[in-house]
């Protein structure tokens, strides 16, 4: 007889079922039983969710775990642990490791390391091109069979239009999306930030917004040509939002994600030359921030992903030109999204949660059993205290790195319990759990 868990007294939000109610949620073993009352049932474990949001486990489709090859920055275990603290139960790892994830063995390595760690579930993405070199297609069929949920050369764009076209065409038979990091490299040589008034003032080389937009436009056209599914990663400019909106209106299979930093910070933050504000795509202008937020609100942007990109302090804390691109994201997403989208009443919790659960589940085609709380679904659940006040402090991070731009921010909203396949793997408030003898 599988163990019965009762999550009691919470506000259950499940956008896939249009559910937002004060009800109890029952879990049996690794599956969701449902929210119907269970008269006479005696739970083996009860979690008191009074005052908390109870929602499907959050899914981040854009995470760099650095293993294999850069274990000084992050490992699969530490990254998956940081995910739990941020409320994520499933994360999609990016393949730009050393060596890159371009063989079935490498895909299986990631899956096995994640199982050993026993933290958040890790679903690997795999390279589009062999050795991530952008020249010839990797063995997408074998990678898919091994468990890859998406193909991407992330960290770098697929620059070659012909290769992108073939990738979009060929991946159709597995119904796997191509995640694209949109950047025309010829326009970004030596750049460290957004090209604009601020880069001009600071004497830093900038990436013009069109370096992103040109490739967004190209790839939407290639998706239209091939019928493939292109997913625009970390979309950051106003014009990119328009291009995706227009592509969707024409029926092109294009989806898009936005990152918390691109809706909460601008290129003005670089004025202190702090490399914790250096990422790619770079922080843009207030106008872009507004447009990306609007894109999230009106559904042009399907989902929120973090682009969690750990770098050890000895690499990151140095001259701005030489510091690598990327910041942490897993452990700070919820309060930043709350502050940016919910506090100003642009979106409600159910609307935001949809972009963190069912939408990413659909993107990686796991919506049959993930991303919702329908009976029979994977019992991965996140409990959020929506108003919990706390101070972001790298000393408390579970990630191996500390490269966050949000250090010292006083924020509200935090995951307090993260349940993966029926198992409580993260619990901030131990008093909430009661076990039957």
């Amino acid at each position: 007889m599988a163990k019965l868990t009762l999550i009691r007294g919470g506000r259950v939000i499940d956008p896939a079922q249009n559910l937002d109610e004060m009800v109890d949620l029952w879990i049996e073993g690794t599956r969701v039983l449902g929210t119907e009352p269970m008269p006479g049932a005696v739970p083996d474990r009860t979690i008191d969710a009074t005052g908390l949001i109870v929602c499907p486990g959050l899914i981040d489709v854009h995470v760099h775990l650095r293993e294999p090859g850069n274990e000084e920055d992050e490992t699969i275990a530490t990254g998956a642990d940081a995910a739990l603290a941020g409320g994520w139960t499933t994360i999609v790892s990016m393949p730009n490791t050393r060596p890159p994830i371009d063989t079935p063995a490498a895909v299986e390595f990631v899956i096995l390391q994640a199982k050993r760690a026993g933290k958040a579930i890790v679903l690997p993405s795999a390279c589009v091109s062999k050795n991530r070199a952008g020249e010839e297609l990797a063995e997408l069929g074998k990678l898919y069979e091994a468990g890859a949920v998406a193909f991407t050369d992330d960290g770098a764009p697929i620059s070659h239009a012909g290769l992108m076209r073939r990738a979009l065409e060929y991946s159709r038979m597995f119904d796997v999306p191509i995640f694209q990091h949109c950047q025309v490299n010829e326009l970004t040589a030596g750049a460290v930030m957004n090209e604009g008034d601020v880069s001009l003032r600071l004497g830093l080389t900038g990436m013009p917004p069109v370096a992103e937009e040109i490739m967004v436009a190209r790839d939407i056209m290639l998706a239209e040509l091939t019928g493939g599914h292109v997913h625009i990663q970390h979309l950051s400019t106003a014009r990119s939002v328009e291009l995706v909106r227009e592509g969707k209106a024409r029926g092109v299979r294009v989806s898009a994600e936005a990152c918390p930093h691109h809706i909460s910070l601008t290129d003005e933050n670089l004025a202190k030359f702090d490399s914790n504000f250096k990422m790619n795509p770079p922080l843009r202008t207030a106008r872009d921030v507004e447009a990306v937020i609007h894109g999230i609100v009106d559904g042009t942007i399907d989902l929120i992903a973090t682009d969690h990109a750990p770098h050890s302090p000895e690499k990151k804390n140095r001259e701005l030109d030489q510091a690598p691109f990327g910041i942490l994201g897993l452990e700070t997403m919820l309060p930043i999204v709350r502050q940016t989208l919910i506090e100003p009443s642009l979106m409600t919790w159910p609307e935001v949660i949809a972009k963190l659960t069912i939408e990413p589940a659909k993107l990686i085609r796991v919506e049959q059993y993930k991303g919702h709380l329908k009976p029979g679904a994977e019992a991965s659940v996140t409990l959020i205290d929506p108003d919990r006040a706390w101070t972001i402090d790298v000393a408390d991070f579970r990630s191996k790195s500390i490269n966050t731009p949000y250090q010292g921010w006083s924020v509200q909203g935090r995951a307090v319990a993260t349940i993966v396949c029926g198992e409580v793997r993260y619990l901030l408030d131990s008093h909430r759990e009661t076990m039957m003898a």
Partner: protein
Amino acid sequence: MNMRKPLEFRRLKAASNQRRTRATMTATTSFNHRHLLALEQLTRDEIHYILDQADIYAAHANAGRLKHSVLTGTLVAQLFFENSTRTRSSFGLAARRLGADTLDFSPSSSSISKGESFIDTAQNLVAMGAKILVVRHSVPGTPQLLTQYTDASVVNAGDGAHEHPTQALLDLMTIRQRKGRIEGLTVALVGDILHSRVARSNIWALRKLGARVILCGPPTLVSDRWTTMGCEVHHHLDTILPEVDVVNVLRIQFERQRSALFPSVAEYFELYGMTQRRIEMGRDDLLLLAPGPINRGVELTPEVADGPNSAILDQVRNGLAVRMAVLSLVQGHAAAPLEF
């Protein structure tokens, strides 16, 4: 030999302008910063105050008082991660004239080549007792980064294309000497504005002090975006020359140019080189500045560089005074008054 007369004349004129400047000066303010990182961060009064202090050191030098003791026993470390001749020697001499000990650090002869980080290097120098770090680096913001890791005063001697505060201060000191004022003047900065830290520091200081600033160069080096810094943008030097009081000819930064931003040196010289013909198009009292090192035949001709409108060697002389003022001020010392 025929150079001597104009030089003498210029020196006298400079001295008289200096007196005029001091006489018209109102109440001095003070300078309460531990670092000098960027002129963007200074107020108009603070900039004038540094220039006044530099004028005092220059007057001391004119009176034969070369050595001072305000920094006796203070260790000034120079960290130059990028090549420099005049800035480096100027800072070194300035420090010694103030009585400081100096420690010169260059990456070629150092542990940077052994992989030591820039921050570790600086911390080691501070552990040896350095109270002032004079830093030049190819990456913008590096001096500012350093302030988070040491207790020493950091003086920016040029950070990438960001700022070069003492260069702009010596440019302003030279303008003030020659013209008696900054406010109301029209100053043209010509050339590679995009890659120029000298341009950025000059723009901040000139705008704060009330000058009109015209930037002139090809659109690849001077885009319209520069108007957001309060400048005017022009692409034709001949058009603007008649209306300017000062022209500051910036060096083409061959080492910072990542891709060809103009077709050839010959074409550049044709469009923007300061020639005798162009000097004659300007006002008689057109003041010509060049931060150096100058590429003779690229930005200006030898006859112009050495001609009567040129203040290039004044700039070098003033650089010493400006750096003495800055090194004293970041340690909280004002120059000894002239009358004692």
